């Protein structure tokens, strides 16, 4: 009995200490994450422009406006295209690369890791400006080399489709190495015995990848998958804002940029908030996935 009481007492003291240690974090999160989240939901039901002294309650009108605007569908289509492209370039390819580096390549491992990760430490604004010049359709080096082969470089910043491809490539330049390193760590952590046994049994490389490595690094795989989707939404904001401002005619805008544009260029906070909430709805679905697969699937040593 005494022991139980003592533990309880210690527990409660420990609890207070824990909350104390968490207060700085919780304060910042409450003020700049949780509260804004609630406030954005609130704003999505009002007509406002950030300066008017009063906000006018309009019910679901903002959602109706946003959902009846053809540009919204264009922008969500673009968002989807960005995500698909980044999943291919930044999730599938790094996965294969990480696998090859771990299993096939014996030399220059550290060099490859270091060099691939390098662009991840550079600002995407720098990336945007460098590629704007390198991929300049008239005088850039890529255009000149293509010209040698008689291929004309498309004026990508003015063309539907192309503009998304190029902005995705610029974003990939920055995040490729990060995803590669995270995936490599996970594959490298897989027990060697299984892989060596498979190698001895002369199991083909692709089978080792699909039947051993993919399932055993699955938790990280899903983490990178979700991070890539976040990047597909979030990271592309910078090249869009810096290079095209969403143009031509919304052809390169994604959901986040569109929400920014509505709020800080057109001053329609209601539309912007409604758009963000809709984007969030997609996100919550992903979070549930994350909780189901990543957190549950994670195996901690302790």
């Amino acid at each position, binding site marked *: 009995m005494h022991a139980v009481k003592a533990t309880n007492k210690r*527990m409660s003291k420990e609890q207070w200490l*824990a*909350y104390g*240690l968490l207060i*700085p974090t919780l*304060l*910042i999160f409450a*003020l700049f994450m949780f509260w*804004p989240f609630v406030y*954005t939901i609130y*704003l999505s039901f009002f007509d406002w422009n*950030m300066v008017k002294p009063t906000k006018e309650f309009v019910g679901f009108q903002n959602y109706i406006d946003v959902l009846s605007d053809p540009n919204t569908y264009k922008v969500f289509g673009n968002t989807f295209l960005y995500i698909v492209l980044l999943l291919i370039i930044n999730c599938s390819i790094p996965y294969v690369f990480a696998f*090859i*580096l771990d299993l*096939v*390549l*014996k*030399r220059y491992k550290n060099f*490859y890791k270091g*060099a691939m990760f*390098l*662009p991840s*430490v550079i*600002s995407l*604004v*720098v990336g945007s400006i*460098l590629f*704007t010049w*390198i991929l300049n359709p008239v*005088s850039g*080096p890529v255009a000149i080399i293509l010209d040698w082969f008689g291929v004309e470089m498309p004026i990508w*910043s*003015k063309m539907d489709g192309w503009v998304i491809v190029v902005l995705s490539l610029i974003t990939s*330049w920055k995040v490729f190495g*990060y995803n590669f*390193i*995270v995936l490599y*760590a*996970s594959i490298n952590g897989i027990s060697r015995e299984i892989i060596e046994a498979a190698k001895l049994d002369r199991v083909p*490389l692709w089978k080792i990848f699909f039947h051993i490595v993919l399932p055993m690094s699955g*938790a990280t795989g899903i983490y990178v998958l*979700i991070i890539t989707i*976040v990047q597909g939404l979030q990271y592309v*904001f910078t090249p869009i*804002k*810096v290079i095209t401002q969403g143009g031509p005619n919304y052809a390169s805008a994604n959901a*986040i940029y569109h929400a*920014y544009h509505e709020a*800080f260029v057109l001053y329609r906070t209601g539309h912007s908030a409604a758009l963000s909430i809709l*984007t*969030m709805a997609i*996100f919550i679905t*992903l979070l549930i996935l*994350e909780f189901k697969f*990543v*957190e549950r699937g*994670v195996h*901690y*040593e*302790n």
Partner: protein
Amino acid sequence: MKTSRFKSIPWHIVFMVTIVILIFPIIFAIGMSFKPLEDAYNNTINFLPIHPTLENYLTFFDSMDVLKITSNTFIIASVVTFFKVITSFLAAYAFVFLEFKGKNTLYFLLISMIFIPFSITMIPNYLVISDLGLSDSIWGVILPQLADAVGIFLLRQSMKTIPTSLIEVARLDNLGHARIMKDIVLPLVKPAITSTGIWFFILSWNEYVWPVLILKTVDNYTLPLALQMYISSEGGTNFTVAMAVAVITMIIPLTLYLMFQKYIIGTFTSSGIK
């Protein structure tokens, strides 16, 4: 053991080509930034400065208060990093070594914030910062960033590797949590703190989205914002100056990376999701 039946040469070529593509833009920018404009503009293929000049850098220094802009960037990155590391360390300690009600829910809630799109918080945060009179001030950029879920995650992962028996023994010796934190946990997770700190510094140095909403006057800008003034989809005429600004913007993160490469890569290889 020999694994020569998996042909490695083609893969080495694939890796080398990828690395050339990834590194080329950096070399290109450095080379172009030392070229006279006409020289660079007429021949973008040859990025080697044959007649090297500093005029592009000087033009940038003439057009803006570069020292002020660089120090803004430095102050923001340092203050943000300092506080993020402290708040993350304290929170991670609570999550790993203490028992309290709602622990898992709270952890999940904090971590899920990593996945909240920026657009959800931008309007309210902009309004709060304006109400506090901090718009167009570097403190307005700093304030919302004093805590970070990624930091909690990385330091928690690192603390989880400390054997619980070590802490239990210390508890039996009647060591308080303050002592355990300072004398046992802190030294053991120091490498993780260093690498997380460097990573935060680099991220903050490069940050664009939030500062661009808050900072209005050029004197209050950070380097990425100053650089952005030199971009248009057509490229504009300040090509070589833009390259010089790009070089100045990336020099600090690149140097930090080259110095602490092992640490930084280590953060993501040892304490990544298992």
